[in-house]
């Protein structure tokens, strides 16, 4: 198989991801099945016990994932099909990592400050947009969110030390 040269190198094949996902799902199913077996997966006099439904669902999930595993392993064509290439993975990480940091910051600084940081940072560093545009957009957005949720609709968001300083 000669691949076109301008295509960046694939990080993983679809087949590899298929196999990994099947294994993870099968492991998850095994843990769930075990837990439900412990809490009682039998049939009491008044119908199924509380573990019955999830136990058999776990078996179904496990069975289907093992089937998928066998199928993916036998699938030769999938080995050549890229799941993501390098450039794509980098771009996905460009959102995923900031989103992760955003969740982390929300815990410490509250949602509004964290979203200000996320939007300003993302626009500046990922989008390459001018500083003043990025800052202005993120301030307006965070303020608008605050007015919409906390003030107008009474949906209370997590807040941090900065909101506390301002008296909210």
């Amino acid at each position, binding site marked *: 198989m000669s691949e076109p040269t301008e295509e960046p190198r694939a990080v993983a094949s*679809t087949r590899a*991801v298929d196999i990994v*996902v099947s294994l993870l*799902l099968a492991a*998850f*199913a095994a843990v*769930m099945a075990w*837990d*439900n077996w412990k*809490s009682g997966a039998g*049939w009491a*006099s*008044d*119908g*199924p016990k*509380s*573990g019955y*439904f*999830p136990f058999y*669902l*776990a078996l*179904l*999930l496990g069975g*289907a*994932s093992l*089937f*998928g595993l066998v*199928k993916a392993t036998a699938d030769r064509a999938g080995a050549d099909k890229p*799941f*993501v290439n390098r450039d*794509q*993975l980098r771009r*996905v990480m*460009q*959102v*995923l990592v*900031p*989103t992760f940091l*955003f*969740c982390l910051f*929300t815990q410490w600084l509250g*949602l509004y400050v964290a*979203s200000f940081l*996320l*939007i300003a940072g*993302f*626009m500046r560093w*990922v*989008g*390459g*947009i001018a500083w003043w545009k990025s800052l202005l*957009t993120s301030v307006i*957005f965070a303020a608008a*969110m605050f007015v*919409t*949720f906390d003030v107008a*609709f009474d*949906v209370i*968001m*997590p807040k941090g030390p900065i909101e506390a300083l301002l008296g909210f």
Partner: protein
Amino acid sequence: MEALGLLLHGFEVLLTFKILSLMMVGLVLGIFVGVLPGLGGPNGVAILLPLTFTMEPTSAIVMLSCIYWGALFGGAITSILFNIPGEAWSVATTFDGYPMAQQGKAAEALTAAFTSSFIGSLVAVLLITFLAPGIASFALRFGPPEFFAVYFLTFCSFVGLGKEEKHKTIISMSLGLLLTAIGMDTVSGQLRMTFGSDNLLRGINFLVAVIGLFGISEILLTMEERLALRGHAAAISLRVVFKVWREMPRYWATLLRSSAIGCWLGITPGGAIAASFMGYNVAKRFSKDKESFGKGRIEGVFAPETAAHASGTSALLPMLALGIPGSGTAAILLGGLMVWGLNPGPLLFVEHKDFVWGLIASMYLGNVVGLVIVLSTVPLFAAVLRVPFAAIAPMIVVSCAVGAYAIQNAMFDVWLMLVFGVVGYVFKKINIPLAPFTLALVLGNRAEDSFRLSMIGSAGDLRVFWSNSLVGSIATLALVLLFWPLISAAIERLRGALVKTTT
């Protein structure tokens, strides 16, 4: 005509300044999320759901459903002007819509799309108005076995009729069902699969999962594909609108066929996306001039848009009458009902008349107002697409996080949303369908409850599902659908054998 009286009452409920303005806000927000590539009906509704948490249910559902209508209208703008389908069922609209835009007939294509969506929805709403109360009152006789049989039918039809690989549909569905079982068991009060965690005690909230699966994962996918937005400008003048409307009656047969296809597939669980393709293909097959399809024929816009909206709207029929969503968005609206403390199902028509008829009336009004708004504001919304994605992506992430947090005021849910976002991204890339997952998440608990209540009623005898003709025929139909691929293969073979013996 009892329905008409109740419908008029519904309009009375609607016609307050507050609800009408919420309706406008909902429509504009909806068009906005519909226009953004990668966000469509279900994502938009899921992300904007928290806005409605503190409202009373009628205002909330009116606003949410208007977001939905708006998103349906908005999706057409992206498909036609930018050749990017806002969601799966706008794909067929790009076939002829984009060529029309290239030929400088964008305004015609957009008018055709909006008007035919309007007609499709209208037919479906009429169907809901006159059919839903009947179905609901019929379903009032349902006991737990009947309900379980209907849920079972829904699940089976996804497995048997879905286009994806069967084992992947089963994976997606059983994973969803398993996740809903986490937390306290509603029948016995026992804890299941919590592994000693306080956060898992509450269970996994359906909406948190949906926001992650649709919102976050869609952002990841859009970033990966790095959409380059190059679109055509368009402004719609009244002259063009009337020109298209004058042409429209000529295509009455196409419109009627597409509406019928849409309504049918919308009510059938899992059929919503197929509708637009089927509408398109049927129109093509009936046309005398098949060659011109795909090259910018206005009929090629009418057909899929009518079918898509008819199915998108009629998907609300089983949700209202039986508590079973016909589409992903309907499932999210159903999740909303539960947040507002309403119990979806046939009793809704008896206990919450204001709510149900207010919703149905808002479907009429929302579509009319939506049509006017969308026709007059196309240039504005097309400009939204010129805003750099680097500014829109983080805002969507923030909205998702707000949504996930607001449901139960829990930071844990925000993390859960992130996990579901990654899961959704991977699943989409390896073709594990998300619709059965969503359906399982929203129906899981109720399916299990109805199963166990029927088992308690029958002292553990499975024959309760064939104890009378009603439940028996639903359960049998479910099994037939589940094994439909095998059955249809067997029929084919039989027919083949017959042909051989006769020749």
